[in-house]
């Protein structure tokens, strides 16, 4: 069967393949390379990728500097960046989640941008306050805003009409949300009033934090030294979730973060608390967007939570840093922000662009009702604590919320236990 000649052929093909491999390597150049080119790691797909590629070409035409981009899924970027940093070859610019900022700031190669953003023409204050908070760690600016978003309620108008319910109004309350959810739930046709993601990660936590703030509560004390969520507000927010998940059973629990959006798009869910990034995932639903409900009498209002992300510059030599800064400041200048937002439906990272005439209508033409999210940016009053221990706190809170949603513990007991653990994590 395996003749001698065949085996010799195999041996030669090994040699040939190896030769090919080594030869083929010649085309692989390192990140950036010479001629002042810089490399940027980003996770844009679809429309965002096309718009971004267009901007890169435009920059090269206008400024003669080549910016090469490498696609890295945002979830994986941290692993790749940390490995590259440890190995001594970080990228020039990387897209990093805002929640990583307090820790990313400790990387020695991260470039401080505090002076750069104060230069004339940058208009640092034109960026939303939530973005600036996330880009700044202990007074040191370590990133330029890359993305801004917020949470609001997206609801299915058809299901509301079918249930005889009026659309949510701008001054609605959580009691109203709860009652709407109950009326929209029908086990017979497997329809749920609302949904919540329960993997216990930060996605679980930040949805609840919005409720906590709306109930007038705070996560930690102002000095970030102790837990402050074990309060009336904490109890109210958890009780709302518990009623829907356990008592009314109007809440679909998604433990994998993968089903809820498609369920909504298939008309199985009445309302979702989510962000503008999901709107393009609902082509089959006649949806509307409304601000977050409030807890009347608490002063929390209809405030919402925002999750901005940053472009971070790494030090690969002063000329590369200078080029990277120049590029980022151009990328985040109003003209480019306007172009990018209109092409992708992403919220504009600058207030001046959001306020410009006709902008809202133009955005809505491309992506219906996204202007509601843009206006909702005015409801962002505070940000999550920018401390390195936040991931630990997030896990504790995630467990607390999920155990209440699954009916495994009572809200007050869960709050007390979580507060204890958080205090330990902060003090220890």
């Amino acid at each position: 069967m395996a003749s001698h000649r065949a085996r010799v052929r195999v041996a030669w093909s090994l040699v040939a393949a190896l030769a090919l491999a080594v030869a083929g390597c010649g085309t692989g150049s390192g990140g950036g390379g010479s001629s002042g080119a810089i490399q940027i790691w980003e996770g844009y797909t679809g429309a965002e990728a096309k718009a971004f590629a267009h901007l890169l070409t435009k920059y090269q035409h206008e400024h003669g500097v080549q910016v090469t981009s490498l696609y890295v899924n945002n979830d994986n970027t941290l692993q790749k960046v940390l490995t590259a940093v440890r190995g001594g070859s970080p990228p020039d610019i990387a897209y990093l989640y805002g929640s990583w900022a307090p820790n990313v700031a400790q990387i020695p190669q991260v470039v401080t941008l505090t002076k750069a953003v104060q230069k004339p023409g940058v208009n640092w204050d034109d960026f939303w306050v939530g973005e600036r908070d996330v880009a700044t760690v202990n007074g040191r600016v370590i990133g330029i805003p890359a993305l801004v978003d917020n949470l609001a309620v997206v609801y299915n108008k058809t299901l509301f009409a079918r249930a005889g319910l009026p659309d949510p109004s701008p001054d609605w309350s959580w009691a109203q949300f709860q009652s709407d959810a109950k009326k929209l739930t029908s086990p017979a046709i497997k329809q749920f009033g609302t949904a919540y993601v329960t993997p216990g990660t930060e996605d679980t936590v930040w949805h609840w934090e919005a409720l906590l703030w709306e109930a007038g509560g705070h996560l930690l004390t102002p000095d970030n030294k102790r837990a402050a969520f074990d309060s009336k507000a904490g109890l109210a927010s958890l009780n709302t979730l518990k009623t829907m998940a356990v008592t009314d059973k109007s809440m679909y629990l998604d433990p994998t973060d993968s089903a809820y959006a498609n369920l909504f798009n298939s008309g199985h869910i009445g309302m979702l608390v989510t962000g503008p990034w999901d709107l393009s995932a609902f082509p089959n639903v006649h949806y509307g967007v409304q601000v977050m409900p409030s807890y009347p009498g608490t002063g929390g209002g209809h405030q919402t939570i925002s999750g901005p992300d940053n472009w971070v510059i790494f030090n690969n030599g002063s000329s590369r840093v200078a080029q990277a800064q120049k590029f980022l400041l151009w990328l985040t200048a109003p003209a480019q922000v306007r172009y990018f937002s209109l092409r992708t439906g992403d919220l504009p990272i600058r207030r001046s662009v959001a306020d410009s005439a006709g902008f809202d209508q133009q955005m809505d033409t491309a992506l219906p009702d996204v202007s509601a999210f843009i206006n909702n940016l005015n409801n962002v009053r505070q940000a999550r604590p920018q401390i390195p221990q936040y991931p630990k706190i997030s896990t504790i809170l995630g467990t607390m919320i999920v155990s209440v949603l699954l009916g495994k513990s009572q809200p007050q007991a869960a709050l007390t236990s979580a507060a204890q653990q958080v205090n330990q994590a902060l003090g220890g």
Partner: protein
Amino acid sequence: MVRARPRFRLPFSPWHLVLVPATIVLLFPFVWLVLTSLETSGEALHFPPLLTPHVLKLSNYPAAWHSAPFGRFFINSTVVAVTTVLSNLVLCSLAGYAFARLRFLGRGLLFATIMATLMVPFQVTMIPQFIITKWLGVNVLAGVGINHIGALILPNAATAFGVFFLRQFFRTLPLEYEESARVDGASRLRVLWRIVLPLSAPALATLAALTFLDSWNSFLWPLIAVDSTNQMTLPLGLATFQGAHSTEWPLLMAGNVMSLTPMLVIFFVAQRYFVRSVAATGLAGT
């Protein structure tokens, strides 16, 4: 040979009754995959998944192919996989045979050490591996450094899995064949090349198939080691459809089908080598 005559004969082998349901269970996710690849993006955004697209949108395939340099990704993946397979067949045969049949000082300890390399998860070893690879690229040969295809081949050019697998297999072969050749004066290498390897065709084919699969689907190390788009392999290319917030499912699934097909074709063709008749090797008795 006497076999009790069954009273009721099916027109086909009864084994089909076992294999067909089993195959349905095994292939079910592929059905979903292929169907999703033929849907519009709106149809793909359903839960429970729609298994009946209105139109078979074959245009997803060229759309996926053109959205990124997939031709280049295919070439890269093929070069890496083929080279890795051939290299493993050679190096793991040698090492596996030595561990199975040769007595040398430190054999046991060396084998244990090799096995130990399988027991630490990649998340922990990837940073040192990156540093080593980078060092090799700078100090030894540019072709195996970061952002070169060689960096994807060399760390897996011989795997503890391959050595372990072939060692176990070689040990199951009857010693007589090798001993008689040795008595005839053949060197160890000749014994391996002429006698043992031909007898090991199923094992070698199996190792080739498994190594190919592993290399073709490898994601995390290429993610860490590749810094430019034209050095990407298929899994990295497919990841470009998968954003953190939104995924283009039909294109991703079309890409997945295109990525899977060579593997399945190779396996389909090669699987008759998994089965051999003893008569074919010329060494049978009876």
